Every structure is written in structure tokens, then in C-alpha cells.
């Protein structure tokens, strides 16, 4: 119980720190909604299309949080003596990472809430026609592989290179995964590659869930395989990092 209190308190202060950095809030919470308002809503062909794009931009918001907060955050933590300092205090192992994940979840909720509000206010989406609870479950579970990817990249890159590397991964996955525009309108080569990307599979699962289309088994398995792969590499990277830094 005491450990959970510690994780919650660290997550609270981490959230507070991030909220005090306007650029972080803009890029993770405001930007997905703004982007959706400017480029998503005007291009929605009908209400189903708008629901799909809402789902896409929610995923875009979640990706921004899990990649930036986990990736850049962990890369910065590794080079900070504050991180070493926390290790010598009595507390659970993995305190920093757990609190970062919890804080990331809160920011992801804020980002998604922003997109949904934009859909309601500017797109006049009728929420009652779609399955948002099912969508929320898929959105949450589907975020796990990307969270592992964010944490993994945070362990692999330096603080200085984290921002460009994470931006590159984020923008590539979002664009080529069809989260900004329907995959059918992507250039041919990108369209072909797109089907193998985890972000495209994530998108397919989200679109199916919100429109209540049957979920394809192979898509669920594909994303699970990505998740497992990222998780295993993350476990190895974490072990190596511990070895390098603390042994």
C-alpha cells in the first residue's frame, strides 16, 4: 500500500511538472485536437467517416503521449542525477517508470478527451450512434505495444537525440499508419508498407470497434505480436541499462 502511495505521489508531481511546461501540454494535449479540427473534420465524408477520423486522432493523441512522455522522459531520466538519487531512497524498484506510466495515462486521457470534445463541438458528431466503451477498451489495450516502444526508445537513445528520433517515429507511424487521413488516399508505396505497421493495425482495430464492425483476428494478433516483441526487447534493454548504470 505504501509503495502504491509513493508511485501515486510521484505520478502526481510528474504530472504537475509536465503541466507547467506549456510546450509539452501543447504538443501532447492541444496539438492532436487542433490537427483534428483543421485537417480531420473538414475531410470527413459522412458521419461514419467522422467517427473513424475521431478514433484515428484519439490514437494520434495517445501515441504522442506514450512516445514523448515515455521516450523523451526516460532518456532524460537516464542522464539525470535525480534518477540515481531516487534509487537510494527507500521505495519500490521501478518507481520512476511506474509513476511515468501512470502520469502518461492521465495525459493520454486528456488528449483523447480533447479530440472527443472537438468532434462534438466542431464536428457535431452524434456519439450515441457509436460504441465508445468498446473503443476505449481497444484504445487502452492497443496503446500497450506503443508504450513499450516509447520506453524502449527512451532506453536506447540519448537525451539529446531523443526529441528528433521520437518525432521521426511518431510522425512516420501516424502518417504511414493512416491516422491522419484514410489509408486509401496514401501514396501507393506507403499504402503497401502501411498494412504491416503497428499504427495501421491499431487504427484498423479502432475503426472496427467504434463502427461495430467485426474485429479481424489477425489484426489483434498482429498488434499483440508487436507488443510482445517490443516488450521482450524492452526487458533486455532494461536489464542492460541496470547493468551499465548500477552494477
Amino acid at each position, binding site marked *: 500500500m505504501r509503495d502504491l502511495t509513493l508511485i501515486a*505521489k510521484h505520478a502526481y508531481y510528474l504530472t504537475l511538472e509536465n503541466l507547467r511546461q506549456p510546450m509539452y501540454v501543447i504538443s501532447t494535449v492541444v496539438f492532436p485536437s487542433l490537427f483534428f479540427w483543421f485537417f480531420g473534420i473538414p475531410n470527413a465524408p459522412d458521419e461514419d467517416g467522422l467517427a473513424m477520423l475521431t478514433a484515428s486522432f484519439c490514437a494520434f493523441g495517445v501515441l504522442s503521449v506514450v512516445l514523448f512522455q515515455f521516450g523523451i522522459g526516460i532518456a532524460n531520466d537516464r542522464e539525470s*542525477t*535525480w534518477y540515481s538519487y531516487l534509487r537510494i531512497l527507500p521505495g519500490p524498484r521501478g518507481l520512476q517508470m511506474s509513476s511515468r506510466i501512470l502520469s502518461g495515462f492521465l495525459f493520454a486521457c486528456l488528449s483523447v478527451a480533447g479530440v472527443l470534445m472537438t468532434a462534438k463541438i466542431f464536428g457535431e458528431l452524434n456519439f450515441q450512434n457509436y460504441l465508445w466503451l468498446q473503443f476505449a477498451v481497444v484504445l487502452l489495450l492497443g496503446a500497450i505495444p506503443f508504450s513499450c516502444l516509447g520506453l524502449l526508445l527512451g532506453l536506447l537513445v540519448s537525451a539529446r537525440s531523443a526529441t528528433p528520433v521520437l518525432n521521426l517515429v511518431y510522425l512516420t507511424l501516424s502518417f504511414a499508419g493512416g491516422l491522419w487521413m484514410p489509408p486509401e488516399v496514401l501514396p501507393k508505396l506507403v499504402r503497401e508498407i502501411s498494412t504491416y505497421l503497428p499504427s495501421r493495425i491499431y487504427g484498423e482495430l479502432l475503426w472496427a470497434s467504434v463502427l461495430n464492425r467485426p474485429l479481424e483476428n489477425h489484426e489483434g494478433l498482429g498488434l499483440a505480436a508487436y507488443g510482445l516483441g517490443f516488450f521482450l526487447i524492452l526487458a533486455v534493454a532494461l536489464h542492460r541499462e541496470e547493468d551499465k548504470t*548500477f552494477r
Partner: protein
Amino acid sequence: MKVVDFQKVERAFSKSSRIGPLTFSLAEKQVTVFLGPNGAGKTTTFKMLLGLRRPTAGRIELWGEAAGSKSVKSRIGYTSQDLSYPPHLTAEEVLSLLGTHFENPLPLGDLQDRFQLEKVWKKQLGGLSGGERRRVGLAWDLIGLPKFLVLDEPTTGLDADGKKRLWSEIAAFRDSGGTVLLSTHDISEASTIGDRVLVIDKGTIQLDGSMNEILGPLDYKRFRYLQNGMVKEWISHQSDADARKLLASGEDISNLEIRRLNLEEALVVYREQR
């Protein structure tokens, strides 16, 4: 009672780079100064003591338990010369957060008064001066009511007043039964506060004893002056007698300077003369 016990502790970085073997113990109610030039192995020794690095050989115990155990962690207060602070949190928030790690932390109000943190209490740490941050750092060293303080170059960034306050806090902590290990590369700092000095150089303990026992062997002074248009320079281990002799010699000397060697210089001379 032994608070810290290092037994033949070694840490190898590569075939040619290592520190140790280090064997020493620290007792209660004692301020021990770990004196050594930059790169001597002070910080690595501290990291092993705190459980952040594992020794490649030997044994480290604190109160008879392994370094890094939960019970040991709750009895240590630590600050580092290059500790980075969360820049967007206030002093109050950081101290509140750190207090959560301990069973019975000191009340925040007490810390605020004791370390005169009123002005910085609601300010984000990123906007504080080095000295102000050090004061906050000292408050967080003591928040968990530690029995043992480990201070790595604690005077970095402190002005004269700050140093005075630090020395008085350390003395009060020792008098209340606490043990202190602090590192510095400044001989004069060591003589201000230490009951005992461990001199480390090239990864091994070179000298271990009371302040007088240690500072005597390292008390070298450099004489420099002009004589017949030529610069003369030499090092003395008995500067008072040599100065008297020089002045009584009747030689035509000018621009006389007598300067105490800093630790790095003194250790080189000490090694050469041994």
C-alpha cells in the same frame, strides 16, 4: 559501534583502471572527511556505499547489513555535488515528495524555518541560485531523520554564510549522535569540520588519521621570490623555519610569495618524498 565497514573493497572498470582495495570503517558520532583530488575515486566509493555500484571484490556493510538494503536506505541522507533537481517543482513540493519515502519525516514547517527557506518555498527549483538549491538539498538530506549523512562535495556553490551554516548543521548532527562522511578536495575545508580524515589518491587510501596527523604530512608551502633578477622557487615542509632562515640570510630578495600547496600538489610532493 561501526556504522560503515569496508573490507578489501575493489571496483574494477577495466584491466588497467580500478579503485581499491579499500579497508576502513566509520564510527558513530564522527565526521570523517574523504579528501582526495578530482578523479581519486571518492564518488565511486560513495556510490558503492549507497548501493548504486557493486564492488567487484570485498564486502561493504552498514550497521551490519548489506549496502542498498531498504533498512539501510531509510537511515541515510545523501547529497551529491551535481544533483539535478526537478526544475519545475517548488522547494515545498520536492520536500513533500521526498518525505513520503520515510516513515516519520520531519515536518515541512520545521525544515522551512531551520534552513531559512521562506523566500524559496513556493519558487520552482529551476529558478533558484546554486546556494539556494544547496540549502534545499540540505533540508532533504535531513527530512528522513537519518543516522548517517553522506555529502559529496557539499560546499560546491555555497557562499561563506552558506558554508558556515552547513558546518554548524554538520556539527549539530554529529553531536546528536549522527555519523557524517563528506568528500572534498579542499584541505582547508577538511580542517574546519573533520574529526578524522581519509586521504584517497589513485583509488587507494594514502593516509588515515586525525586532522593533525593528516594535515601535518600534507602541509607543504611553495616559496617564490626574485633573487639577483632570477626567479627562485622551492617547496618547504617546515615553512616557518625556512622563512626565518631566508629573511635572516641577508640575501637581496624581493617579491616573496609563500603559498600553501593545494591537495593535488601536496599529494604529488608527498608521494615523491615517501
